[in-house]
């Protein structure tokens, strides 16, 4: 501190920064002495330095003043002062984008680049390439080629690196210098080797064969440059990844061999490459892990950091491979570099036993306030993983998380903690009340609207179903009094859920609602008025439909339908069933925490895949009368991989029709296909109404053709059908190089695999956040129940997954997760049947020899119940 004080004192006395209070206009004024004769190198140099300093500080130069200074500077080429000339090159590079007509220095730079002064040549090349465009590049091509193979390393390196920069702009020209680059690669100078290798790879990276050849050559010849070795390792591991090369490949041997290189940089690069490879076995990882283990005790912090970061990565997939390093990692948990300590602890948390958890958590809490948010998020992720591994430890973790929640930290960090607590609550019912209490405390003082609304939503969902719902009301109502509009609105929605679920709380909730109806914000008032009216009806069905489970339509779809409705004035009320359903939100079911590198952009409501299909199909005149798109299936492959033609089908279901969209790709470069249709032969009473051909299918450009099917009206239970499919088309042979087709063509056909339509194609998934309420809402008017024995199924998990994929319905209340060591389970499924009828399924499963399943189905329509039960049986 004394040192710093002294320094300050002295500064104010003598003004030691010659660049302080530098005025751009004054400097530009001074630059006029560039025009004086004779040139004063010392003063000119000082002025150029000031200009570069100002540019570096971010000072804005107008085009006119920059151009003026630039032109004055060009006169300085008459001086032979070395430093002055070098500063001229720097000025040219700095001003290349802000001054006009920078190309006037081309001849001066070309002269320096080919001149006798070696110190000028490299920098002159780099400055010249900075101001050169594609047309001018041709003029200096000859010089560039010579420079690349020049015997002076700095000249060759400069030419190679500049060429690399220009690949983006002038690939075709630079491509012609491959032979020169090849020659440079065998230079004795290590940097020239490295730069030549980099340029060669960039020019050839799209030609896998050429890359393979290049690798073969260099891995055998043995380069001297450690940088070049690192580059080779990266190229080799990329190639291994692309070709899915086995680990017996010579490329893998090369990378493994690099673990014994004498340079640490190369050894680390090789270890890191092996760790990043997919499907590495423990045996293949072992040598990489043991070099990383050695690095853990290096005196260099960067090396320790690199090693432990990479080990952390290994521990995610192969915790057992890292256990050998536990002792070394233990030594790092007190490292003065907190990043290293954090990584060591989180690695140990992944590899260690349950008994060490408490000790490690204590250690990390001693310095968690000192580490950056990025690493705090790493800690939270480690905790989240631990909770899944050792559910019994959740109380220790919850305690720790709640302390972290109280500390300072940015949004990403807080979000990670909140997500982690929520996932613990969902995984461990017994931790629900503690978790909710911590979250309640957190929203009392939370500056992040997104997190507050998220927690309020969760409180509304979980709170009413706890033993003591009343204690949450105070926390929620405080939000209504204190927070911003968005949070107030969320709080109102949460309150309504308490009123709807708990009769004894209803009177109090109504009083609070009354107060919310006087809010200053429209949205808050509207919600309060709406909920007030619904709650006063005291009807379970209304509560379920409008408070617990909300709308299940696609939001962009609703917007479009409403817009359409307002455009065409009509007497008819707006029909909610005409709006396409929302494809299930995945967020509700997600358990893992998003990785750190999430985009910082605010989440926009992107149109779903189905919204996009809806748009595309609506644009085709033949399909306009079909009504809203009900469901689009995942693509089904109708050809084997690597065949002449690749065809996949997407099944689009409408109220009375189905449209089959065939995405076809022609992989033959000597054929042009025209008038492509897929002819379909149904096994049941399905009727093909129309074929819409893909007019032209050139090589490797995907195209789509469609088949429209009418669903049988008279038999609504006929939900499944098998179609045999044949692709028919006109072939025109063509020249593989030019793509020019022959005049004549001939008809041909190609047999595709059969296509199945199943019950799942008629049901859209809908998430009911409160299944019980929805179950009551639909009622038991058309309830049917049947019991089945699933003899071939061995576990409850398997049974659950089979039912979900067979019916294509949405699991609710996290009932798709079967708790461990249980031999009975209840699965809740929700969906909407084609035509807009809600359908709910409750499946009670019991595990004995096989699995016995009692299925209860409810729907607003009787046939739907029959269809479901018939198809299960």
């Amino acid at each position, binding site marked *: 501190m004394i040192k710093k004080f002294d320094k300050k004192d002295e500064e104010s006395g003598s003004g030691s920064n*010659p660049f302080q209070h530098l005025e751009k206009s004054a400097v530009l004024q001074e630059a006029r002495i560039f025009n004086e004769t004779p040139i004063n190198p010392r003063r000119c140099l000082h002025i150029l*330095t000031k200009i570069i300093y100002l540019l*570096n500080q971010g000072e804005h130069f107008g085009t006119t003043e920059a151009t003026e200074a630039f032109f004055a500077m060009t006169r300085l080429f008459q001086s032979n002062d070395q430093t002055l000339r070098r500063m001229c090159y720097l000025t040219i590079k700095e001003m290349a984008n802000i001054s006009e007509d920078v190309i006037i220095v081309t001849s001066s730079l070309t002269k320096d680049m080919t001149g006798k002064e070696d110190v000028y040549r490299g920098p002159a090349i780099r400055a010249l390439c900075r101001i050169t465009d594609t047309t001018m590049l041709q003029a200096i091509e000859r010089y560039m080629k010579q420079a690349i193979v020049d015997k002076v390393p700095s000249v060759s390196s400069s030419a190679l690196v500049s060429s690399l920069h220009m690949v983006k702009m002038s690939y075709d020209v630079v491509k012609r210098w491959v032979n020169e680059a090849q020659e440079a690669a065998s230079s004795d100078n290590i940097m020239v080797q490295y730069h030549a290798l980099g340029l060669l790879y960039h020019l050839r990276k799209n030609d896998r064969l050429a890359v393979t050849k290049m690798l073969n050559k260099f891995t055998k010849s043995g380069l001297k440059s450690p940088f070049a070795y690192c580059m080779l390792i990266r190229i080799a591991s990329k190639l291994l990844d692309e070709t899915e090369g086995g680990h017996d490949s010579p490329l893998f041997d090369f990378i493994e061999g690099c673990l014994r290189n004498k340079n640490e940089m190369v050894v*680390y690069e090789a270890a890191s490459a092996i760790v990043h490879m997919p499907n590495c076995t423990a045996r293949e990882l072992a040598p990489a892990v043991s070099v990383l283990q050695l690095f853990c005790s290096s005196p260099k912090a*960067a090396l320790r950091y690199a090693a432990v970061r990479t080990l952390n990565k290994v521990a*995610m997939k192969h915790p057992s491979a890292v256990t050998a390093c536990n002792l070394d990692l233990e030594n790092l948990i007190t490292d003065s570099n907190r990043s290293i300590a954090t990584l060591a602890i989180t690695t140990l948390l992944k590899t260690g036993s349950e008994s060490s958890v408490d000790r490690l958590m204590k250690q990390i809490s001693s310095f968690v306030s000192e580490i950056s948010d990025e690493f705090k998020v790493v800690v939270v992720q480690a905790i989240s993983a631990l909770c899944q591994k050792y559910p019994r430890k959740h109380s220790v973790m919850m305690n720790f998380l709640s302390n972290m929640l109280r500390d300072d930290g940015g949004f990403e960090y807080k979000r990670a903690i909140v997500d982690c607590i929520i996932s613990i609550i969902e995984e461990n019912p017994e931790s629900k009340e503690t978790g909710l209490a911590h979250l309640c405390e957190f929203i009392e003082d939370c500056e992040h609207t997104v997190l507050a609304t998220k927690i309020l939503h969760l409180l509304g969902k979980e709170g009413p179903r706890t033993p003591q719902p009343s204690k949450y009301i105070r926390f929620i109502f405080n939000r209504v009094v204190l927070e911003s509009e968005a949070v107030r609105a969320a709080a109102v929605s949460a309150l309504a859920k308490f009123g709807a679920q708990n009769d004894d709380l209803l009177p109090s909730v109504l009083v609070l609602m009354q107060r919310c109806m006087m809010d200053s914000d429209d949205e808050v008032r509207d919600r309060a008025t709406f909920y007030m009216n619904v709650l006063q009806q005291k009807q379970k069905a209304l509560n379920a439909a409008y408070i617990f489970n909300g709308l299940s339509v696609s939001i962009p779809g609703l917007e479009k339908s409403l817009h359409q409705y307002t455009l065409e004035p009509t007497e008819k009320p707006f029909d909610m069933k005409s709006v396409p359903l929302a494809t299930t939100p995945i967020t509700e079911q997600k358990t893992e925490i998003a990785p750190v590198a999430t985009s910082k952009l605010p989440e926009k409501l992107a149109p779903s895949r189905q919204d996009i299909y809806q748009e595309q199909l609506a644009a085709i005149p033949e399909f306009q009368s079909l009504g809203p798109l009900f469901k689009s299936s995942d693509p089904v492959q109708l050809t084997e991989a690597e065949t002449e033609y690749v065809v996949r089908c997407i099944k689009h279901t409408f109220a009375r029709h189905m449209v089959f969209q065939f995405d076809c790709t022609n992989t033959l470069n000597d054929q042009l296909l025209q008038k492509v249709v897929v002819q379909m032969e149904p096994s049941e009473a399905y009727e093909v109404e129309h074929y819409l051909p893909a007019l032209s299918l050139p090589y490797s450009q995907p195209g789509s053709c469609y088949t429209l099917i009418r669903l049988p009206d008279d038999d609504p239970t006929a939900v499944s059908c098998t179609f045999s499919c044949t692709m028919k088309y006109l072939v025109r042979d063509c020249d593989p190089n030019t793509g020019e087709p022959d005049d004549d063509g001939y008809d041909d056909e190609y047999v595709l695999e059969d296509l199945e339509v199943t019950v799942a194609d008629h049901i859209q998934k809908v998430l009911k956040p409160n299944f019980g309420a929805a179950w009551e809402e639909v009622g038991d008017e058309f309830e049917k129940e049947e019991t089945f024995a699933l003899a071939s199924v061995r576990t409850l998990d398997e049974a659950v997954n089979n039912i979900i994929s067979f019916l294509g319905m949405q699991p609710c209340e996290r009932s798709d997760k079967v708790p461990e060591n249980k031999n009975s389970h209840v699965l809740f499924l929700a969906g909407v049947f084609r035509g807009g009828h809600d359908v709910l399924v409750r499946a009670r499963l019991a595990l004995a020899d096989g699995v016995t399943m009692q299925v209860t189905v409810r729907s607003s329509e009787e046939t739907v119940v029959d269809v479901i039960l018939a198809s299960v049986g």
Partner: protein
Amino acid sequence: LHSTAPPEPSLYTVKAVFILDNDGNRLLSKYYDPELYPSIKEQRNFESNIFNKTHKADNEIAFLEGLTIVYKSSIDLFFYVAGSAQENELMLMSVLSCLFDSLTHILRKNVERKCLLENMEGAFLVVDEIIDGGVILESDHQQVLQKVNYRVGHPSILLVLTTAPVLQVLQSAKDQIKWSILK
């Protein structure tokens, strides 16, 4: 931090290099990735964030704002080299060491703010010889010094000798001695 992809084979290694003083002010900085902090304001925010998180502890390496950052300080100067999260940390270290060693020679071991500012052109040239557009051009400081061929103290010492009174020269010499002792 948990990027799954291995690093792309590329020569573009360095995302940014900058030198700050002990108040976090920028003395020299170069950004090589046009997509990373395109505006001056973003760059300055980044620099001050990095400075705040690193100037207290001399830890050599940190991971901040999604970048691997290696750093080193000397008296009242802070040197930083930043690369992507996937970058080989040791490559970044070799750039940092080369920059530091080159400047140590050019500044005749007086690696401090005052001396650096008096030889700013030397610093600009050194950085230009070590990194070109994000590519490591040279990592051996001897080679860098040879290429820059920069005469120490030029021009400010000359300026001092010709124009300044003797007392001031003495004061300047005293300062330099004081700083080298404190170091």
